[in-house]
């Protein structure tokens, strides 16, 4: 019997090629998106889950209670590792890990650097040997005990190959940042792509002392300061859990923080390994809600593809009425007809499944590249297609078969035998028009939500781009300053100014808006206590305001100086200090980081962080020791040539380092990478949802045209105009679009308004967004439905009536 089902299914599908193609195409699109989304979700959920003790691995992180709210950092005080090892009994192993953002690595031969490499992207780590007991780091050469000495490193296979090719790297000497020689003592296996520990060079933790003697002298034993890159990993004993350890932290901290104020503000949190990738508070890469949003979009696309199928299959069922009648006469039961239809659905779905897997495999590298560009992670198809993938894929295919095939199967099986045999099954008897209308409405709802989502996310992104940040960011090129030598920096600045296409040059620690920030306590005027708020502090020379176009609203610019003698503050600081006018703060004392200076000017507020955050109180001052970036405003007409000139001067000034640059516009763009990613995904998926919906509409309207052929003929004979005939179709779809809109608009508003709450500066969702959504859906429906219905309306009525 199954063979018979499959045989007839195959022949039916061949006979109605357009119907089959539309169905396969719709399902293929839906399934392809679902596969790609599943891969992305699976990839992110798999982060660091490959460690054999993953369920017991934790990271100790910090947060502060401040008058401005809670402040989170993945960093911990430098002495925490040793203290936790001694005091927190449930921790079986503890390892401090420090990550140096960017290091220039020189390969040494006979005491001379031969090649230089810039290792950024968080490649260089300093860690204690216990890290090997906590995480699965496989040593290929060397001994973990070697990490108990200073100035030694382990390399990953990939970086060893990059540096030395096939030559054994053991015993080779590297120089970090032109100041410290380290010896390669081991080789570790490359880490997989799904880890947040992007380690390529692993130095012993003691190497940090020699790499940064200032830190060893001032900070190593200091509980006050926290560097966000100083982190602490631990392994819980097998009989304990996170909550138990968490309970011990207040008493633990109380031992090291003696003042009441510190005890009140300092907190330690025990973060499970599985939370690291997702927790934004602690620099997580992708928030869980993004994963959930992706999952929901994937599901919506699948549902819309299924609805498509149900609509077209139910409409198509009409053409099958005679067959159903004959089968019933021959003794087929309702159940047998149901299964016959399920078999047909299965064929279409399996074909779509195969196509979608092929299509997903073709599109996967593009998705992977796109993700890598945006958030720096590369996905590998082979790692994601495993037994679990196939299990879920097969389950999805089965679900689609039953979701899509059940209703048409049920409708077909329920045909009245006699009516079916006479071929007089009407639309009304197709299992209730209301069900199909509800399905079309659902499809329109999904489409409209995605359209509204696309409009809102695009508008917010556009708002980012168009909003006046309070500073200029175009044609500004920024280069790092590896050595804070006052003489070198002045020479560099002068030489840069000598390039004809360079208009302005400034030395800064960070540009106006950046991801890296410094905040501190502030004392104002002759007030006894520090202010209740923290102030953001930036250091830059006196060309900063001019280069970035920051306006002075009161007083004057700071004078050139190598140290912090004068301060500029922003308008928000004036407000927070409780002063009535900008002039009130001028010539008053400000103490920041132990340095006291006069406030000489007030600058107009500008965005210090992304539009997610409010503009905070900010102070600006000079200090050569804090300049890490040299920024130039350039003429873009001959940019390549200008960059070559900059490279030449920069490389001559810092011969031990590798020249690199970044346009400030690009840097700002990266700060919105998650939003850009979200916009890209929503746009792509909205487009596909619309396409799938169009296929369904097209199928449905073809069916309606076939059904109404006689009616159209009669109406035309009786004098109906083409417009009146078109309205026959238009009326039904207009009502459905409107009903969908009533459901979609509040749902979309609710979801997107929630999303917008994440931004301190945001657009408001106005009526125009909804008007645009309904207009767009209407246009899509008109385009899809128009051609078929106008063909029917323009047909010769004699021909139409002949179909009776």
């Amino acid at each position, binding site marked *: 019997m199954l063979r*018979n089902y499959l045989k007839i299914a195959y022949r039916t599908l061949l006979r109605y090629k357009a119907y089959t193609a539309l169905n396969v195409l719709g399902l293929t699109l839906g399934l392809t998106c679902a596969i790609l989304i599943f891969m992305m979700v699976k990839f992110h959920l798999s982060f660091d889950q490959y460690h054999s003790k993953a369920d017991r691995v934790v990271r100790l992180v910090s947060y502060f209670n401040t008058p401005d709210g809670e402040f989170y950092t993945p960093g911990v005080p430098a002495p925490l590792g040793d203290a936790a090892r001694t005091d927190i009994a449930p921790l079986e192993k503890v390892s401090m890990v420090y990550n140096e953002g960017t290091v220039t690595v020189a390969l040494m031969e006979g005491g001379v650097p031969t090649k230089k490499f810039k290792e950024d992207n968080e490649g260089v780590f300093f860690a204690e040997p216990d890290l090997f007991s906590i995480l699965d780091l496989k040593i290929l050469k060397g001994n973990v005990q070697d990490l108990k000495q200073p100035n030694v490193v382990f390399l990953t296979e990939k970086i060893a190959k990059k540096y030395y090719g096939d030559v054994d790297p053991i015993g080779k000497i590297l120089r970090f940042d032109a100041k410290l020689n380290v010896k390669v003592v081991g080789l570790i296996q490359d880490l997989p792509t799904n880890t947040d520990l992007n380690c390529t060079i692993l130095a012993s933790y003691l190497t940090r002392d020699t790499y940064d003697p200032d830190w060893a002298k001032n900070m190593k034993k200091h509980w006050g300061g926290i560097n966000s890159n100083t982190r602490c990993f631990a392994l819980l004993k097998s009989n304990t859990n996170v909550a138990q350890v968490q309970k011990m932290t207040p008493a633990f901290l109380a031992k090291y923080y003696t003042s009441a104020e510190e005890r009140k503000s300092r907190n330690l949190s025990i973060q499970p390994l599985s939370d690291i990738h997702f927790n934004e508070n602690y620099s997580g890469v992708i928030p869980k809600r993004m994963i959930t949003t992706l999952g929901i979009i994937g599901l919506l696309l699948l549902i819309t593809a299924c609805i498509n199928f149900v609509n077209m299959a139910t409409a198509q069922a009409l053409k099958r009425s005679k067959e159903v009648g004959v*089968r019933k006469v021959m003794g087929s039961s309702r159940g047998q007809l149901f299964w016959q239809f399920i078999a047909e659905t299965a064929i279409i779905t399996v074909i779509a499944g195969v196509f979608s897997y092929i299509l997903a495999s073709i599109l996967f590298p593009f998705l992977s590249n796109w993700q890598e560009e945006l958030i720096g992670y590369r996905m590998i198809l082979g790692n994601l297609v495993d037994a679990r993938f196939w299990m879920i894929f097969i389950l999805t295919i089965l679900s689609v078969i039953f979701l899509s095939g059940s209703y048409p199967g049920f409708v077909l099986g329920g045909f009245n035998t*006699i009516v079916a*045999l006479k071929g007089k099954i009407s639309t009304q008897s197709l299992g209730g028009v209301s069900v199909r209308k509800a399905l079309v409405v659902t499809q329109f709802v999904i489409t409209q939500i995605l359209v509204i989502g696309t409009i809102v996310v695009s508008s917010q992104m556009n708002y980012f781009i168009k909003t006046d940040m309070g500073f200029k960011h175009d044609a500004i090129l920024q280069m790092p300053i590896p050595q804070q030598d006052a003489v070198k920096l002045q020479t560099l600045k002068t030489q840069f100014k000598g390039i004809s296409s360079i208009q302005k040059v400034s030395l800064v620690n960070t540009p106006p808006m950046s991801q890296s920030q410094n905040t501190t306590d502030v004392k104002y005027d002759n007030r006894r206590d520090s202010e209740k708020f923290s102030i953001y502090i930036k250091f830059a020379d006196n060309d900063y305001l001019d280069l970035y176009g920051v306006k002075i609203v009161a007083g004057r610019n700071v004078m050139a100086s190598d140290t912090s003698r004068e301060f500029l503050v922003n308008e928000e600081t004036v407000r927070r200090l409780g002063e009535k006018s900008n002039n009130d703060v001028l010539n008053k004392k400000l103490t920041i980081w132990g340095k006291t200076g006069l406030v000489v000017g007030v600058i107009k507020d500008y965005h210090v962080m992304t539009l997610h955050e409010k503009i905070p109180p900010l102070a600006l001052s000079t200090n050569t020791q804090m300049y890490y970036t040299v920024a130039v405003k350039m003429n873009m007409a001959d940019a390549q040539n200008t960059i070559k000139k900059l490279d030449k001067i920069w490389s001559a000034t810092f011969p031990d380092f590798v020249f690199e640059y970044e346009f400030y516009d690009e840097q700002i763009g990266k700060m919105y990478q998650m939003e850009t990613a979200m916009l890209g995904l929503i746009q792509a998926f909205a487009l596909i949802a619309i396409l799938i919906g169009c296929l369904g509409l097209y199928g449905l309207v073809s069916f309606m045209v076939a059904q109404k052929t006689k009616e159209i003929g009669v109406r035309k004979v009786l004098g109906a105009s083409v417009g009146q005939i078109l309205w026959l179709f238009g009326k039904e779809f207009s009502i459905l679009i409107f009903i969908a809109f009533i459901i979609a608009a509040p749902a979309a508003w609710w979801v997107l308004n929630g999303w917008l709450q994440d931004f301190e500066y945001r657009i408001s969702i106005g009526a125009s967004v909804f008007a645009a959504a309904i207009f767009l859906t209407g246009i899509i429906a008109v385009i899809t439905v128009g051609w078929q219905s106008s063909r029917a309306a323009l047909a010769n009525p004699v021909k139409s009536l002949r179909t009776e």
Partner: protein
Amino acid sequence: MLKITDLEKIYRTEDIETVALNKISVDVKDGEFVAIMGPSGCGKSTLLNIVGLLDDADTGSFKFNSEEVISYNERKRADLRKRNIGFVFQSFNLIDELTVYENVELPLLYLGIDADERKKRVEAVLEKVQIMHRRNHFPQQLSGGQQQRCAVARAVVNNPKLILADEPTGNLDSKNGNEVMELLTDLNSQGTTVVMVTHSEHDARYAHRIIRMLDGQVVMENVLS
């Protein structure tokens, strides 16, 4: 074989009630060939549908082989139908996607007969109706007469006790029509009961008895010699 007593079937819409069968009583004996005649709308097709268990009556009794079947549910009806009744329609009602062979094989599939036996029986019946040579053709590739012979083959392949024919020659020319009537007569002579609805006096003369209907009632019966 069939005993119908006081059978009533009324079609209802919101405003109108149409009495299709008005307390009709009909008996058909084993091995009989009965023709039902009457003007359009007299209820003859409704009667045939109820006899074929494709439709149900509102009141009255219908015994099939002495068993009351009026209250049977759909599953039981389908079961009784596939084991005992063969249908021949005016418009042939062959499934376009299946070949001649596959169309004829269909009732045997629903009876769960194994492949070897199916092959034997299908080929035998195709030989009998003389369309074995068109076994792999699709219905659209056949003439009307061939299509109806295929439909007859399908109706008899499971050796039913009863054949119900609804204007079996209505779409055929006289030559093909006569051939189909010969086939039905032949089957009847081998013991199969035949009930046929027809407008054709010529075809009705192949039957043993003609039941004439009007307004849902039997108005006359003619026994033919």
